[in-house]
């Protein structure tokens, strides 16, 4: 049986080995980018059906960020929204025949979790200032400093393993059942996979929001207010 942890290169570009999750994730990026470019080509004050759907999507994401962070969602919309959409489309990309979800390999998840890790620190430093961000490690007391530092890494690791484990186990189980029972039998499991994929995409995005919110600090501010940087310095 093929190991879910190993990867064989599909083809080589010079010295660079290109594997199937790389191709699949570039496909997902091209799909999302092309779709957004097509859908936002003719924006109007009086929205068409496509534009209304997109606006609904964006305002739902905004509302979720706003509820979790208690802040103006505008600076975080791009990151959280693209994480959510990319994970969702990647998890559902197994609907296309012959495509294995790129999130079913640990490298893609590791890349996304690293983005969340770096942006957590970046937002924390940007909004609280370097001293202010470092001071959050000594909360509630200085005894917690080692634990808080360890937590930064363990939560990133658990972010990787959670998404990888959920998506990969779905792919793996479908493979096993295909080998045992054959055609059409794994369809209910595939439906379950779609549900798991949607929930995991949501959870990944919500956890990224929660991490960033804990780094920037949740001072209650009404949304649509002046820029959040103004209050700190």
């Amino acid at each position, binding site marked *: 049986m093929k190991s879910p942890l190993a990867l064989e290169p599909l083809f080589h570009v010079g010295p660079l080995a290109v594997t199937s999750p790389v191709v699949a994730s570039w496909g997902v990026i091209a799909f999302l980018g092309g779709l957004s470019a097509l859908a936002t080509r003719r924006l109007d004050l009086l929205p068409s059906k496509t534009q209304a759907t997109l606006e609904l999507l964006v305002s739902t994401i905004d509302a979720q960020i706003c*509820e979790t962070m208690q802040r103006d969602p505008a600076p975080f919309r791009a990151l959280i929204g693209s994480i959510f959409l990319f994970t969702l489309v990647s998890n559902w990309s197994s609907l296309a025949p012959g495509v294995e979800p790129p999130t079913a390999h640990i490298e893609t998840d590791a890349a996304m979790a690293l983005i969340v890790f770096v942006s957590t620190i970046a937002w924390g430093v940007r909004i609280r200032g370097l001293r202010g961000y470092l001071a959050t490690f000594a909360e509630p007391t200085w005894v917690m400093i080692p634990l808080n530092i360890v937590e930064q890494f363990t939560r990133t690791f658990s972010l990787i393993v959670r998404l990888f484990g959920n998506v990969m186990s779905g792919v793996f189980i479908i493979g096993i059942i295909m080998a045992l029972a054959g055609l059409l039998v794994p369809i209910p499991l595939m439906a379950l996979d779609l549900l798991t994929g949607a929930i995991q995409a949501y959870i990944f995005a919500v956890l990224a929001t929660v991490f960033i919110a804990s780094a920037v600090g949740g001072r209650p501010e009404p949304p649509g207010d002046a820029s959040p940087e103004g209050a700190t310095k």
Partner: protein
Amino acid sequence: MNDLIQAVSIFSAAIAVGFGAIGPGLGEGRAVAAAMEAIARQPEAAGTISRTLFVGLAMIETMAIYCLVVALLVLFANPFIR
């Protein structure tokens, strides 16, 4: 020797997933039960409760996923099998 290690690895992978699923199963059951009760008492807070519930369930479920990953490491990336 390698055969013995392989047999023990397969056995321990099954044990790891089987026993590792018990704790998260109990925990998730309790969490969902508590959330149900909370929604029944206060239906207007259903949105907040279910969002927190989903995040919490993901946290609990991670324990089971860790067991799965350990089992896969034992099966496919075992450092003691040459």
